[in-house]
């Protein structure tokens, strides 16, 4: 029978005077035998709530109960807590980490052998007991972190974003393991920024900006959207313009490019038949699609942004050209014995979006840096906007706009100073710089933040500013490195509205991501895994490679990775 093991009632937390509350009157109950999800974008308050339940942060108001006790009275050996970076000592081995946590949680010596054997089998780490935790892969670290949290069977298991940056295979394995624990009667709280994980939970708490948007089974949230979600398959050329027009339509609440189709969420009472179709595609039929948690989230927030981009409207037209905008021809990078990227080859035609998809550490960023001229390839060659990477690096850099991971703004400079700096760095001066900056401020609504330091901006504005800085000089090619990690879906849609608009102007885009939803925006994708390019094609071609007609991007990714591992083992 389900039994509550932890609860929060009306908890409020504020960091600093006058700051908006990190948590604002949140209620939550974790029960045994159910997978409870704590879902929301970065900065929603998930980690703060997790830490409160672990007794590491005191609420300003409201109360926390763990098995009926306050955090000060509770028996800490009854809680298993895995913080975001797993809490492992990287210079200790797998078994030393396990022993440390076993001692700290008071696991008796005579129970140890059996428990360790079980955990090592469960996490498949038995072969690596002597390896230092720092030398494990991301997925293995995650499993060891879980094992340390489980070393003495807890009543409550708290997992703070356990799946961030880990490859989908490890992610799925971890999910299956935790599912098993739930079945044994443990109370589990799993926090995540991936909305697709929310769909698999038994019960979900959806947080946004410190407030609770929804709690209950995820199906109750997506159910009412049944019949409002459609896919319209369209040829590549007309997808973006159709989406733009659809999003400007009152009847449409939200929409995305989804592989070879446009996916639309209609407003209540909106008729999909009225959505304008591109000329020559009048016979394209809207097909009903299954509503997803992300649709429900956007709907709760009142729908996504419009489809037109002020940025794209003010952008120059890139003259059409037959030479590929980006070409990678057998790019290879070795650091000593280690091959970070091996024989990467693809071309991106003008006005296309090309994605590099893969888990952290697979070689995406290395490929990216070679194409930016920041790393010299060990072998192979490449070109950007027709300029050779080996001989014309300065021209390469001048013709691309680069938005780095985590936005790489100067946190201690104001918004205005950041814009001035990047204008100068891209060689804009005088009137051209003033115009470009004025335009950026207007397009991205930065006026009220101009004097504020970039480091203190809300995440969504940081991302806007980073995009603004990257395109000040109106480059023909844009490189985006993990551009929308952790931001909420509205901000992500707004971002892609700008990118789609620029692509219509003839801009070419290279994007890295480990985010499956984002991969759907790409015209073509290269899958990078363990430094190798294991598959290349349109999103739908990759899904077809996975075999199943209804496969998601993640299914495709996992199937392709497993096939690659099988080949590797056979070799």
């Amino acid at each position: 029978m389900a039994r509550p093991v932890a609860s929060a009632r009306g908890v409020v937390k504020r960091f600093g005077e006058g700051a908006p509350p990190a948590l604002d009157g949140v209620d939550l109950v974790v029960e045994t035998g159910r997978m409870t999800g704590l879902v929301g974008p970065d900065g929603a308050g998930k980690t703060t709530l997790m830490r409160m339940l672990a007794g590491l942060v005191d609420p300003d108001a409201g109360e926390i109960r763990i098995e009926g006790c306050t955090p000060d009275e509770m028996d800490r050996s009854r809680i298993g807590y895995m913080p975001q970076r797993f809490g492992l000592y990287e210079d200790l081995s797998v078994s030393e980490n396990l022993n440390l946590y076993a001692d700290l949680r008071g696991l008796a010596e005579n129970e140890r052998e059996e428990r360790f054997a079980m955990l090592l089998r469960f996490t498949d780490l038995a072969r690596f007991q002597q390896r230092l935790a720092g030398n494990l892969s991301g997925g293995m670290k995650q499993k060891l972190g879980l094992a340390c949290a489980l070393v003495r069977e807890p009543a409550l298991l708290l997992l703070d974003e356990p799946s961030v940056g880990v490859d989908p295979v490890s992610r799925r394995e971890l999910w299956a393991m935790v599912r098993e624990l739930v079945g044994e009667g443990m109370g589990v709280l799993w926090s995540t920024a991936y909305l697709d994980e929310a769909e698999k939970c038994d019960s979900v708490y959806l947080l946004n900006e410190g407030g609770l948007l929804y709690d209950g089974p995820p199906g109750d949230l997506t159910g009412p959207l049944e019949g409002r979600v459609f896919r319209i398959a369209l040829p590549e050329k007309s997808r973006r313009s159709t989406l733009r027009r659809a999003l400007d339509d009152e009847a449409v609440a939200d929409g995305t490019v989804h592989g070879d189709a446009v996916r639309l969420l209609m407003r209540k009472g909106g008729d999909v038949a009225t959505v304008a179709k591109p000329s020559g595609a009048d016979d394209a039929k809207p097909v009903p699609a299954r509503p997803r948690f992300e649709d429900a989230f956007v709907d709760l927030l009142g729908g996504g942004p419009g489809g037109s981009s002020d940025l794209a409207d003010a952008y120059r037209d890139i003259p059409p050209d037959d030479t590929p905008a980006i070409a990678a021809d057998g790019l290879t990078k070795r650091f000593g014995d280690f091959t970070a990227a091996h024989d990467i080859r693809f071309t991106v035609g003008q006005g296309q979006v090309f994605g590099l998809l893969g888990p952290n550490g697979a070689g995406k960023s290395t490929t990216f840096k070679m194409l930016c001229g920041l790393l010299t390839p060990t072998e192979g060659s490449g070109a950007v906007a027709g300029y050779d990477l080996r001989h014309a690096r300065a021209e390469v850099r001048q013709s691309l706009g680069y938005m780095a991971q985590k936005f790489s703004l100067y946190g201690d400079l104001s918004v205005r100073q950041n814009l001035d700096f990047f204008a100068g760095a891209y060689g804009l001066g005088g009137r051209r710089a003033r115009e470009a900056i004025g335009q950026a401020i207007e397009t991205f609504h930065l006026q009220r933040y101009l004097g504020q330091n970039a480091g203190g901006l809300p995440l969504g504005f940081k991302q806007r500013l980073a995009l603004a800085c990257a395109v000040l000089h109106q480059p023909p090619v844009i490189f985006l490195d993990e551009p929308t990690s952790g931001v909420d879906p509205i901000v992500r849609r707004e971002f892609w509205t700008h990118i789609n608009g620029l692509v219509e102007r003839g801009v070419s885009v290279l994007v890295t991501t480990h985010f499956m939803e984002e991969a759907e925006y790409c015209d073509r994708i290269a899958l990078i895994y363990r430094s190798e390019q294991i598959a290349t094609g349109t999103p739908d071609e990759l899904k077809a490679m996975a075999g199943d007609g209804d496969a998601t991007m993640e299914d495709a990714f996992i199937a392709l990775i497993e096939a690659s591992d099988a080949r590797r083992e056979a070799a």
Partner: protein
Amino acid sequence: MKAASSLRRLRAMMVKETRQILRDPSAFLIAFVLPMTLLFLMGFGVNLDASKTRTGLSLQDDGAAAQSLAGAYAGSRYFDIRAVGSVRQLRERMVAGDIRAIIVIPPDFSRDTARGGGTIQVITDGSVPNMAAFIAAYSEGVRATWEASRAADAGRQPTPPIALSARFWFNPELASRNFLVPGSIAVVMTMIGSLLTALVVAREWERGTMEAIMATPVRMGELLVSKVLPYLALGLGSMALCAVVAVTVFGVPFRGSVGALIVISTIYLYPALCLGLFISAAFKNQFVASQVALLTAFLPTMLLSGWIFEISSMPAWLQGLTYAVPARYLIPQLLTVFLAGDDWLLFLPNMAVLFGFGSLLLFLCIRATRRRIA
């Protein structure tokens, strides 16, 4: 049962800490490489004793007395007369850095001396104040010796009837190495106690391991002790290495007892370790913690402990400040145990002060270390 599990947690944490020390190259660097570098630098490289000073002589009188005094300077072991000429010429040489001082024997010197007077002028380079002071003193010494010997030649009593004869005890050769080398042990222990400890705790905050540890049943007191004891041992080990090298390689005398040295060092490490823990508990970031540790522990130990710069020659307000520097109470103990011997009358009051510092810092530390993240 409770005590047993507490002991087990403590043991586990200390084993973990020790393994990390053994595997972490930066711990080895700070505990062994840095002390040896410092010791060899202080033992071989730095010398605070004045040797022969390059000097210019402007002899403007050709009388016998003037010639004789010039001869005395030329023959002195403290001066190396490099140039002779007018003050104007010598001034250029001083600007160029060829010479450090100018001795001027004025035109009427011989006549005035015959009347029982006679003055000379010594011009020194004030931009090197330490050396200027040395030179002024030495040149006065040469002149006084010259005058005394002239008086003796003439069969008269030397003018100052009381002769001053200095004897330096405990460091008869006045070798600066003999106090620089033992004193550097204070710097080494400060680095390990405060800087290294601050870094390792801040690193646990940065890597998120502190968060995971604090969510276990471990008590905050156990956490503190598990950080203090391994680094106390490391500090003592490094001290022992320094002491052995000081005596064997640099020939620094060791007149006290090993026991006293260990007690002195242990009591000094108490405030040093607590300061390191307090810094990291307050800042939780390796970069900031290292800056604060350098500023509050390392620099005062270098500059305000009386090790290199004598406290009695500092301005009064700065002298007041030195009372707040723990190393000020360690340096006299270290010098005594090396150069003089065990003197518990000197040790005990200094130890009492250090113990007081340690207890105050421990109190602050316990207050700052809460099982909370924000």
